[in-house]
C-alpha cells in the first residue's frame, strides 16, 4: 500500500529539474512558430496547457509523431532523456492555469541538447555533406543512402569499397546496365529508367535533366523502349572536387559497411 502510493507519487511528480529542462526544450522546439504556442497555450498544434494526456500517449506521440499530420516524431532529433523531460513538462501543464503565462525568456545562448544531423564519424561527415549538398546537383537527388535521398539510380553500397578514383570509374561504368531510350508516339525520345508497369500504364523516370521526372504514360503512348548504351552519367568530376570525391568514398564505405 505504502509502496504503491510511493510509486504513484514518483509517477506524478518528476524532479523539478527535469521539468525545467523539459520547459527549456519545449520553448525552443515545440513552442516555436505556429506549433504549440508559448508554454502550450494553443497555436496550429492543439493546446496542451490545462489538459490531461496519458503519459504513454505522450511518450508515443513525442517519439513517433502523428501520422498524416504536422506533428513530427522526435526520436531521431532529440535524445531519449530530452524527450522524457518534454513529456514530464507537458504532464506538468495539466494543472497549469489556462491564463496566458509570461512568455518564456531564454537566456541567450542556451539551447536544447539535440543530436547532430549526422551521427557518423567525423571522417565520413564531410562526404555525407557533399553527397547531399543542396546548393548543387548532388548525389542524393538520384541515389538513396542511409535512409536519405531518392532511390532512382543504383544502390551505391555496391561501390562502397572502391577508392575515389574507382568510384569515379564505377559511376561511368554503371551507365548502360539499366538505362533505356524511350520513344513516344509523338516522336519524343528520352533516356529512361523503368519504374513500374501496371494495367495499361507505364511509369518511366526521364533522365534528361536533374532531377529525373517520373512520367506516366498509357502503354500505347510509348512506341519503343530500347537499351541505351550511350547514355552517360553526369561527370561527377564537374560537380565535385577530387578531395570531395575522396570524402564521398569514405562516406559511402561507412554508410554501407559501418566502417
Amino acid at each position, binding site marked *: 500500500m505504502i509502496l504503491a502510493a510511493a510509486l504513484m507519487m514518483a509517477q506524478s511528480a518528476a524532479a523539478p529539474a527535469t521539468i525545467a529542462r523539459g520547459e527549456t526544450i519545449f520553448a525552443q522546439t515545440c513552442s516555436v512558430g505556429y506549433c504549440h504556442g508559448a508554454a502550450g497555450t494553443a497555436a*496550429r498544434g492543439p493546446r496542451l496547457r490545462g489538459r490531461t494526456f496519458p503519459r504513454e500517449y505522450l511518450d508515443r506521440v513525442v517519439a513517433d509523431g502523428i501520422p498524416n499530420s504536422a506533428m513530427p516524431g522526435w526520436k531521431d532529433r532529440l535524445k531519449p532523456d530530452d524527450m522524457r523531460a518534454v513529456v514530464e513538462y507537458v504532464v506538468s501543464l495539466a494543472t497549469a492555469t489556462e491564463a496566458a503565462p509570461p512568455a518564456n*525568456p531564454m537566456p541567450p545562448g542556451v*539551447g536544447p541538447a539535440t543530436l547532430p*544531423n549526422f551521427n557518423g564519424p567525423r571522417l565520413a561527415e564531410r562526404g555525407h555533406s557533399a553527397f547531399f549538398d543542396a*546548393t548543387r546537383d548532388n548525389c*542524393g537527388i538520384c541515389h538513396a543512402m542511409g535512409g536519405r535521398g531518392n532511390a532512382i539510380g543504383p544502390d551505391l553500397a555496391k561501390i562502397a569499397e572502391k577508392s575515389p578514383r574507382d568510384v569515379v570509374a564505377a559511376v561511368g561504368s554503371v551507365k548502360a546496365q539499366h538505362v533505356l531510350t524511350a520513344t513516344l508516339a509523338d516522336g519524343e525520345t*528520352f533516356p529512361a529508367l523503368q519504374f513500374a508497369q501496371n494495367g495499361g500504364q507505364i511509369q518511366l523516370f526521364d533522365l534528361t535533366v536533374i532531377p529525373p*521526372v517520373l512520367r506516366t504514360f498509357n502503354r500505347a503512348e510509348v512506341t519503343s523502349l530500347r537499351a541505351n548504351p550511350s547514355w552517360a552519367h553526369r561527370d561527377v568530376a564537374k560537380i565535385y572536387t577530387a578531395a570531395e570525391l575522396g570524402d564521398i568514398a569514405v562516406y559511402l564505405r561507412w554508410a554501407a559497411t559501418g566502417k
Partner: protein
Amino acid sequence: MKLLAGGFICAALALAQTGETRADWPHYGGQQSAWRYSALDQINRSNVSKLSAAWAFQTGKIDGGLQSTPIVVDGVMYLAAAWNRVFALDAVTGAPLWHYFYQNPREIGILYSPWNRGVAVDGGRVFMGTLDNHVVALDQKTGRELWNVTVENMQQCGCNITGAPLVVKDKVIVGVTGGDSAHRGYLTAFDAKTGRKVWRFWTIPGPGEKGHDTWLGDSWKAGGGSTWMTGSYDPELNLVYWGVGNAAADFYGEARKGSNLYTDSIIALDPETGTLKWYYQEIPHDVWDFDGAYECVLFDAPVKGTMRKLLLNVNKGGYAFVVDRTNGEFISAWPVAENITWIKGVNEKGELVGRNEPPVGKPTIICPSIGGGRQWNHGAYSPRTGWFYTTGIEWCQEVTVQKEEPKEGRNFFGGVFQLRPAQKGPSGGHMDAYDPVTGKKFWSYPSKYPLLASAVATAGDLIFTGDPEGNFFALDAKTGAKLWNFQTGSGNRGSPITYSVKGRQYVAVPSGWGSALAGLLPQLWPETEDFPPGSTLYVFALPEGTP
C-alpha cells in the same frame, strides 16, 4: 479614318484591361496581374440581396480547412483541397467529374501543412505542388497523373509547396515554403509537358554572385527567403514578379548581419531563363518575420500626372509598397493597419525609419503580430473605382529573441512569441478601400476578428469576402455598406471567385476553418478555439429570372 481610330482605341483598351476575368477564372489571381476582379455584372448592388445557394461541395477532409482559389475553365471547376486532393467539378451543378488524391508520405511533420492554396490549369494540364515538395501534372480531362518531380528533399530543406504554381508560356513556375526553416529559398521552373527542370533562381545569392555580401559568413545557406505564394506575370514586359519571404532565423539577426538580399523583396525575372531583371527590397535585414511574399498586383495609374506601370505588394509588416514594374523604382508606401510599431514609417525614398529591433533575451512588444498587419489572403483591385481593397489586422505580440544555430531541415525562428492585444483601438480586423498609389482610405468595414479570407471585386461594384465566424458577405465597392450575408458554417480562410456559364453568373467561396493562423487566434480570443473546422465550397447565383 474615324473607324480606324475607334478600332485603335478599342485595342488599346483591351490591352489595358487584361487584368479582368470574364466567364472563366483562369488563374490563381483571376488573371496573372492578380487583380481578383471580374467584369461580370449580372450580380450587382441592386440585386445581390437575392443571391442564393446553387450548390455545395464537401471535400470530405476538414484537417487544414479549405484555403484555395478555385480555377474555372470552360464550365469546369478545378478545386484543390488540403492534403493535395484535387477535384474537377461541373461548375453549374457541382457534379464531380474526376478527383485526384496525391499519395503523401505517412509522416509530413512540417509546419507548412496540410493545406493547399490552389492549382494552375493550362494547355490540357493541371499543375499542383505537394506537401512533400513535389510538383505533379495531371491530365485536365481525366485527372490522370502525367508527371511527378521532386523539387528538393522535404526533410533536408524543411520546405514544401502550398502555393499555386504560375504557368508562363511553356513553363510551370513554382515557389516553396521554408522561410521559418534553416533553408535557402528559390523559385523553380519546369517544362509544362515533360516536368524537366528548366531553371532555378535562388532567392539568396551564392558565393560570387551579386548580393552575396549582404549575408554574414555562412548565414546565406540557411537564410530563408521563401517564395510561398504565387507570383504575377506581365506579358507585355515579359516579366515574372514574385514576392520573397522573410529572412531566417526570423527574429535573431546577429548571425546574418547585412541587408540579406533578396529576402522581403519583389523580384522581377525573365521567364525564359530565370535571370533577375530588377529587385526592390522592402525590408532590409528583417528581424520581425514580416514577409514580402504576398501577391504582386499589376496595374497602371497616374503618378504626379504621368501614367505609370505599377506593382503593389502588401507585406506582413502591414505596409503596401508600390513600385514601377518596369524597373523597380520606388513610388510610395502606405500602411494598412493602425498598430505598427516595428518602424516609425517609410520615407519618400522608401527607406524604413525608426526601426524597433527587439533585443536578445528581453521580451518586447511589437505590433503587428507575426500574423501580420495583413495575412496572405489577397486583396482585389477594381478598375471601375480605381481602388485597392484589402484587409488589415490590429494586434501585437510579445517576442523574445533567442540566439539559435541553424539545423538542417528544422524550424529556425530564433525566438518565441505570444499574441498581445492591440495598443491603439480594439484588436480585430477590417476590410478597407484605398487609393492604391497614395493610400488614401475611402471606407472601412470593421470586424471583431481578423479577416483572413481573400476578396474578389466585380463590375457589379461588389466586394465579396468572409470572416472567421463563417459569414460570407458582399460589400458595396463604393461605400463599404454590407449588402448581403450568408452563414457558411465554418470560418472563411480561402479565396472567393466569380465566373459564368451559359450567361449565368456564379460566386464561389471556400469555407473551412483550420490553419496556422486560426490556431493562434485563441491566444487573443479564447472562444475561437472552438470555432468549427470545415472544408466546403459554396456556390451562389441569382434565382433564374432575377432582373
